[in-house]
């Protein structure tokens, strides 16, 4: 049962208040894109055993989407940040590196 900090309303949310939304920072490919790019956007997932950047919505709270960096092997949460970021927030990158010195970085 996870707890994630909502960067909008400042609440530490219970998992039951949240709706998960899968991998974060996907780049949308629309009309005109190649088959491979479109398939990648829709389906190819990193699904790492380790540091994962992902989307959550504070669905039964403020209703806002936010992003989290979380370890899928230990469930440690490195940080959360607002959804309006196309790449991981530098503070969160630093927080992950501090806890996982061997981490290869965001790819």
């Amino acid at each position, binding site marked *: 049962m996870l*707890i994630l900090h909502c960067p909008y309303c400042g609440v530490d949310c219970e998992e039951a208040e949240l709706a998960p939304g899968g991998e974060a920072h996907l780049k949308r490919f629309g*009309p005109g894109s190649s088959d491979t790019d479109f398939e990648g956007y829709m389906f190819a997932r990193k699904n790492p055993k380790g540091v994962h950047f992902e989307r959550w919505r504070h669905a039964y709270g403020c*209703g*806002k989407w936010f992003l989290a960096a979380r370890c899928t092997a230990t*469930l*440690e949460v490195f940080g959360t940040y607002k*959804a309006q970021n196309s790449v991981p927030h530098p503070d969160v990158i630093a927080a992950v590196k501090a806890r996982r010195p061997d981490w290869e970085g965001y790819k």
Partner: protein
Amino acid sequence: MSHRLSTGGRLIDRKKPLSFSFNGKSMQGFAGDTLAAALLGAGQTMVGRSFKYHRPRGIVASGVEEPNALVGLGQGDRFEPDQRTTTTELFEGAVTKSQNHWPSLEFDVGEINDKFYRLLPAGFYYKTFMFPRFAWKHLFEPIVRQSAGLGAVPKEADPDRYEQAYAFCDVVVAGGGVSGLAAALREAKAGKRVIVMEQTAHWGGRAVVDGGQIDGHDAEGWVRDAVAALEGMDNVTLMTRTMMSGQYDHGYIVGYQSVADTTPGDGRPRHRLWRIRTKMTIAANGAIERPLSFYGNDIPGVMLASAVRDYVVNWAVAPGKRTVIVTNNDDAYRTALALLDAGLEVPAVVDARDNVNSALIAAVKARGVKVMTGHGIAKVKGRKSVTGVEICRQAGEGTVVNEIACDCVAMSGGWSPIVHLWSHCGGKLNWDEANAMFRPDQTRPATGADGQAMVQIVGAANGDLGLSQIMGSFGIGAASEEEAPIEAVWVMPAGAPPALRFKSFLDYQNDVKVSDVQLAAREGYESVEHTKRYTTLGMATDQGKLSNINGLAVLSDALGRAIPATGTTTFRPPYTPISFGAITGEARGELFQPLRRTPMHAWHEARGAHWEPVGQWRRPYCYPRGNETHREAVNREILNARTNVGLLDASTLGKIVVKGPDAGKFLDMLYTNMMSTLGIGKCRYGLMCNENGFLSDDGVVVRIDEDTWLCHTTSGGADRIHGWMEDWLQCEWWDWKVYTANLTEQFAQVAVVGPKARMLLEKLGGMDVSKEALPFMTFKDGVLGGFNARIYRISFSGELSYEIAVPANEGAAFWEALNAAGEEFGVMPYGTEGLHVMRAEKGFIMIGDETDGTVIPQDLGLGWAISKKKEDYLGKRAQARSHMTDPGRWKLVGLETLDGSVLPDGVYAVAEGHNPNGQRNVQGRVTSTYYSPTLGKGIAMGLVKHGPDRMGEVLDFPADEGKVIKARIVDAVFYDKAGEKQDV
């Protein structure tokens, strides 16, 4: 023979005798007894039968680890199987029955399995019962099933209620023994909010039975003072009869509280389930004594040494008059002293260790007890009760050197820390060779959201067994006897031949013996998980609390491997079984899920509506009158709407406002249609697809003003679509200036449908609803019959139709007003089925019928609703993929049976031949099918390969019982093809 002692008993109140029954026999105990204590006190040593061999079994333990003494408790709708007597408090009138025997506990036919034990080793069923093929299902499995199972089956719904509670704190302490109390005091004094859970009704754990000095007091006195101190602190909550069931991730705790188990029917919740978020858990739930593995260690009267001590000291019950003690450690000597203090006989202590001495041993010897070091038990004699033991050298193969008559055997194989809570979320263990136990590795705890430890473990649970060691870890002085070291003994005697090992039990309930584990090892089931599953070791209701360590030690020995290399099985919640009732809480019956009601719900209910669940809504399916069948009611409602006027409660329709300078641009992305160009005051039917191209929702969009649109969605889709909008606005187009609000429940909505709809509204008055003032596909705000109303000229039935929204709190009155005003026009309500049939008559699609998550708008002839001018909309790129543009996709058509009958729901149209997997080829399927009362025949819609190009062709639909129904491909619009009726 067990009996009640005339004096003593810390926990019982002799002034409060309680009556109960066991297998119909009336018995007496005292307030403070557990069922097990009361049974033993009443002389009942045999209390059950084992799972596989149906061997007679007695009480082994005094706590949660008890594998044998389970009973069916209660009667009728309050019957509960598999109730553990050692943890169930006695109450007046308790009705108990032993389990797993036929016809009676004393004489059990199933005991024949024990005679054939050699034919029934571990895993025998994997090697047998295979021939002939049908025999497993029809012959062997029924026998296995009938003989397996344990408790009787509850027959009725549970009349009791259950409660769930939340709490938040800094520290949860699991266990109210001396280490738990010391931990709680430490944390509470540091200002932490502390919850202490103790699974029994009493504080103090083992120390109050075993004695010793803490901080200058006797243990009992220290415990009393500690509890009083904690009770006096505002930041501490003490809970007895509350078991910490599980440690979950990020500090989530589930606790299980017994509230009214001993007062059935008193109106209070029977159990309370606690869901707690804590920053830290301190596991202080002690250790469990291990049995020793010798021949006949399961005969009633063979018990854990600590349990014997508990029964004597806590409940003044003597499990036997003459008790032989067998041990590999010093602790069991405390049992000898307790028995002697109670005036009971201890003919011998059989100690597997050679040349061992300590203060405790000396104390026992000083009381005149024979101590036989270097010895073990070769055999326990007796069948339904212990009559004596044969003694042998532990180092040998079981040659009998002595025989001692006795009626009880108290055994101790050492202690295993209870590491469950430490391990639930991944805390690791180390093997402690000197103390022969797995104990927590303090460097590898379970970690929480911050990656730091979220569980601490203290006291015996941490492997600290001596009182001075335990209290010393809290900086509190304590005195207890120095003990000689334990010597690991896994099989007794060490060289036990097969004949002994085949009757040396590891898992009592599941009848797993030393020989079974050795067999598993021999056959290559060398992982501890393989052995567990092959032999069923540790899979009984005690989940291996007694058997696991002994079992994996035997396995390691058989494999010639060190114990830590074998490892343990995984510790999983719950720590002890918890009721499904408690997990359910109040959410049962009407409260199972929230029920969404429209403002007109009560009216429908009063008119006898037949309900259809639609998501969490209830919608009237139809309103049967008199003896009408549902079918007849639906037909009547439809014909009335087509000839007079019908009313549909459409309040469940989703209503989402989308507003802002970029709202039009946003809706152009969301819908396949162009919505930005929709004129103010106009309505447009729109389609939404997901990014995968599939049609996901539809509904009428209206433009209210320059910046504001209102999007209608399907009843089931409102929340999903609103979430979908927010997802795109927040995560993709966050710079677009758009605001959304889901107003579904803010408005009641009524469809007024039929040729006389206008007359009805005109009668209500207040708004011009003429064709000229309110043309088809427009809307208008105004006051209608005194109600603030917005009227949409839209039609899902093909009739002249108005959908009218009023504020939700005026919905019921508005509905009543429509009914009253409509009386002279023959107004009738109609339900969802009428809605469905009328839309099918018109060839309108229904999300969920014509669509199923695999259908794109192009399949449904809805190309007209896909804007060709837009560069992009959600789903557009997906619809360009090769399979989506395949001309062979099935397309929407109408279907008419040649004989006018109604096609069954979901039938397929077959094509010639079979596919490479031998499946019949198909070329289409029915998506909606109804009897049309309007047309007096069956009508259907379906998806057919090249369908629109094959008008008039007849397809074969194999239906039930080999019948093939022939149906012709026709236009999907069956009624008023020109659309003249709706646009009047």
